[in-house]
């Protein structure tokens, strides 16, 4: 157990990566730590050549991951699209960890991100003392990735201004970054590539220019198709997160996950799972990631304030927090759902009572 709250993927799953690398006989593209097929195994789970079990990092369609890995193998940049909470950043981190052995070269894009944070900045003390020279340059994660031949990750690419986004065009098509101040350029080493994630639901983001979009292969990560798949994802992640937070996992966690997911899926899709009752949809996305947060919050509350017993009351306030994003509208939506659906459903009495209390 380290002091780090959360370890990067290549450390947390170091043993799996080492085992895969040891038994990996496939051809590796230049600069790759693993062969493409081993990367897919690392993400989808399976066994390494020596029998070491490899846990599944992504639960879903293997084809999507294959497309993503092949994209990076053809030195095209990869854009992962999806609604919030569809494991875009998670997949991007693990892809970087498996391919480059380093998932820490990240640029978090915001409306305030400027070119200096994407290309390079200047150390002004150096600049004033010695004039423009290489030592005065402050490399960004992207510049370091280019020099080292590693993967650079852009989180939430569309939140960055369009003008800043477009500085990537040269980097992506010519694989080099000119530094006009020094009359030189940084050429990307083999193995360099970019993985960007973007959210295709939020409004008010900066749509990619078509010149930039064309330089990406796009993989859309969908919300889980079936309830069973989603329950599996949540149960697995809740277990992992609780362990890393030193929380004991209550025995009944699987049952409660199934119930919370049932509530989430019905509210998200706008109809009951049997399709018989149409429901109003709350303003929030109610993603799988939020379901995980609800469960972990509930477990934490149960551990510290309820002697470890995970009851609907422990989860109730977390569910309210996830569903009610708009204090007026969403309250009506949830109220209707409670009265028309949950009230009569067996096994959900606890949820009905605690949610009705809280609302």
């Amino acid at each position, binding site marked *: 157990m380290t002091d780090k709250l959360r370890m990067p993927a290549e450390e947390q799953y170091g043993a799996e990566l080492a085992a895969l690398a040891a038994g990996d006989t496939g051809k590796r593209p230049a600069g790759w730590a693993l062969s493409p097929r081993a990367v897919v195994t690392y993400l989808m789970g399976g066994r390494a050549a020596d029998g070491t079990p490899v846990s599944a990092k992504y639960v879903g369609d293997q084809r999507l991951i294959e497309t993503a890995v092949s994209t990076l193998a053809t030195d095209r940049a990869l854009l992962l699209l999806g609604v919030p909470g569809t494991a875009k950043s998670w997949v991007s981190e693990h892809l970087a960890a498996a391919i480059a052995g380093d998932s820490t070269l990240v640029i978090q894009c915001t409306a305030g991100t400027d070119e200096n944070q994407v290309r390079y900045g200047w150390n002004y003390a150096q600049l004033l003392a010695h004039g423009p020279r290489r030592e005065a340059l402050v490399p960004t994660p992207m510049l370091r990735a280019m020099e080292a031949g590693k993967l650079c990750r852009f989180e939430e690419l569309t939140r960055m201004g369009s003008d800043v986004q477009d500085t990537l065009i040269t980097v992506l098509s010519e694989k080099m970054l000119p530094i006009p101040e020094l009359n030189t350029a940084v050429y990307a080493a083999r193995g360099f590539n970019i993985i960007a994630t973007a959210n295709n639901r939020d409004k008010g983001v900066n749509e990619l220019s078509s010149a930039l979009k*064309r330089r990406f292969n796009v993989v859309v990560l969908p919300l889980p198709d079936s309830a069973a798949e989603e329950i599996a994802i949540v149960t697995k992640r809740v277990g992992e997160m609780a362990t890393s937070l030193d929380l004991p996992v209550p025995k009944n966690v699987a049952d409660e996950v199934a119930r919370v997911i049932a509530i989430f899926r019905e509210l998200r899709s706008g109809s009951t799972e049997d399709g018989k009752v149409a429901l109003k949809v709350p303003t929030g996305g109610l993603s799988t990631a939020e379901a995980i947060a609800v469960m972990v919050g509930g477990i934490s509350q149960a551990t510290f304030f309820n002697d470890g017993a995970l009851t609907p009351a422990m989860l109730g306030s977390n569910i309210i927090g996830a569903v009610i994003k708009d204090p007026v509208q969403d309250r009506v939506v949830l109220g209707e759902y409670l009265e028309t659906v949950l009230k009569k459903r067996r096994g959900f009495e606890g949820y009905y009572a605690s949610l009705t209390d809280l609302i």
Partner: protein
Amino acid sequence: MTAAVSLFGIRHHGPGSARRLVEALDALAPATVLIEGPVDASDLLPLLADPAMVPPVALLTYAEDNPAAASFFPFAEWSPEYRAVLWAVRHGAALRFIDLPAGDRLADGDAAAESEVADAEAMDAVGRDPIGALAAAAGYADGESWWSDVIEQNPAPGPVFAAVADAMTALRSGERAISGREAAREAHMRLEIARAAKESAGPVAVVCGAWHVPALAEKRSLAADREILRGRPKVKVRATWAPWTSPRLASGSGYGAGVAAPGWCAHLWASGDADDRDTVWLTRIARLLRDRGHFVSTASVIEAQRLGVALAALRGRPAAGFEELRDATIACLCFGERLVWEDIAAELLIGAAVGAIPDSTPLAPLLEDLQRQQRATRLKPEALERELTLDLRSEAGLARSTLLHRLLALDVPWGRLADAGRSRGTFRENWQLCWQPEFAVRLVENLVHGATIADAAAARVIAAIEEEADLGRLAEWVRTAMLADLQPAAERGIDRLETRAALTSDCGSLLKTLPPMADIVRYGEARAGTAGHLAALMPRIVVQAALALPYAARNLDAAAADDLRGAILAAENAIQLAELAAETGDSWRRALHQLLADAQTAPVITGLAARLLYEADQLAADAAAELLGRMLSPGTPIADAAGFFDGFFAGSAARLIHDAPLRRAVDDWLLTLDDDAFTASLPLFRRVFSGLDRAERRRLFDAVFEKAAGAAAGYRLLGGAAALWPAHFARVTAILDGGAP
């Protein structure tokens, strides 16, 4: 001395195995080619090589006395069987089918179907899908891809057919002995092969489904095989070729042995082993996407190709196949959106090719069915036009009308309804009959849909109904189906109408469903068909349309208002015609009242609503005059007033002649117009009054001037008119009876 027999296990409709088969035939140069197919249709095989025969076509076999019991064996351009036939005809080899006679399958439609189900249940998963089992063994999720990689897309020619035979032997060794029809088929094929081997001058090539190879290679005593075949059912069968379509080659269409993507197979066949196969395919995709308005650059196509190759390498496949190219297309050309792909998939993968057959093809069952029905209804096909009046109350009349309507549904306009409009009486139809030779060809084209006129017409109408998105036309199709007495099609249409009407909120399209529905509801009495379901649906649509009407009439431009006016008029007629329950009519009237009350309603519509209510006595005469006065008063903008006037009087200007208060209101309004406004509205007046003929116009003038001048300028009844009339009448009758000189 028996000839050497070579068995070629193929995959039905597999372009790769077709190519390998042609190579193998070239190498073997057989003197006899035997093909898995009904033995009694062998005579038709050489026709396949006719230059006028364009695949996809299907071998159609049907019971002579019951064409509804029919079965189809489709052949595509890339079907190995088709290629084998072409090879044999070109090289002068003997050519025969060797499977059980078609009569065996058709002997008793129901019984055969049942036993097939039983057969399928008896076989376990391996027996049903041998390729799938092999693919699973090779670690493939999907049987198609496995066959594609190992057989179809294997660029190195090798002993492919030997490998297939080995694999099938291994698969079948674990199986129980098969029974029923399957066993009989294989016994029959063995006997035929043995016979051919004895007769043939050179090597014998057998082309059959891969699954059968081990059984056909097996040595069995002829006597045992004959024993299996004893007592099989027989029925007299006829066979012919029918044009086929590529959508019906797809397994999605319900054709069990179909392929997932005929478009892809056609592409594989057309491009052969060429190096640029993937590029051609991706370019086609790019072109389709561009046609649909997506921006696709050539650079993106190059990237898609590279990604496809990388994916194939990642998946350990020899070349980029269908799935790799699809995934690459989605990632590079569709920006990750699956929906965009699905948008082009139907056109790309299924295609719309239609086959053609030569004129020398034997008579088709549809033509025979027509001849039979012509005899039954005593209608002779004549090229000269003649009239036919049918009384639908008599059975004979109804049968004739049904036949003619069904032919119309098949796009064979032997008869045209002389009064296709609305003036038709409920039990009388007037037809113009005229038979054209090309109708026979059209009938044969319809073979795709079914083997009897009733089946084909129903299938064709159902297909049209499934595709129709417009409510009004959907209702027309339902009427067509009812007139032609096509129960399944009518029921399907009413179902669709119900769902679509429930989902739509577009008032215009709801209104457009009403006229055809009213026709059907009225027709329900004369026809045996069930109009009851529709009679329940129509009031619902009326109410729905009535609820939507006030909103639909707001903020319309001239063209839209005109459209809606037509729809409302037609709907009003339909509602009166159908004699619906009082409360339905009331809700319709209420909607018209709302139109009147709502200031946002387009003026033309307000005018129309006012007139309809006035005519229905829902608006008192003085109230109407008052409304007219208000709408035409100087406070209303001229354009609005003109619109209202147009709506009220268009098509019913004659009302002005008899209705003095109305006339006065209009007169007053006209007098308030200044010169410019009057000139501006002149075209409108012309349009309104052009509906009146000369005499009516005269009477209108008279009525107007009578009031203005107070003079007796109109027609007046003479004092002694009643006494004079009998003499007058006798005189006129005498002239008429005398006739023209």
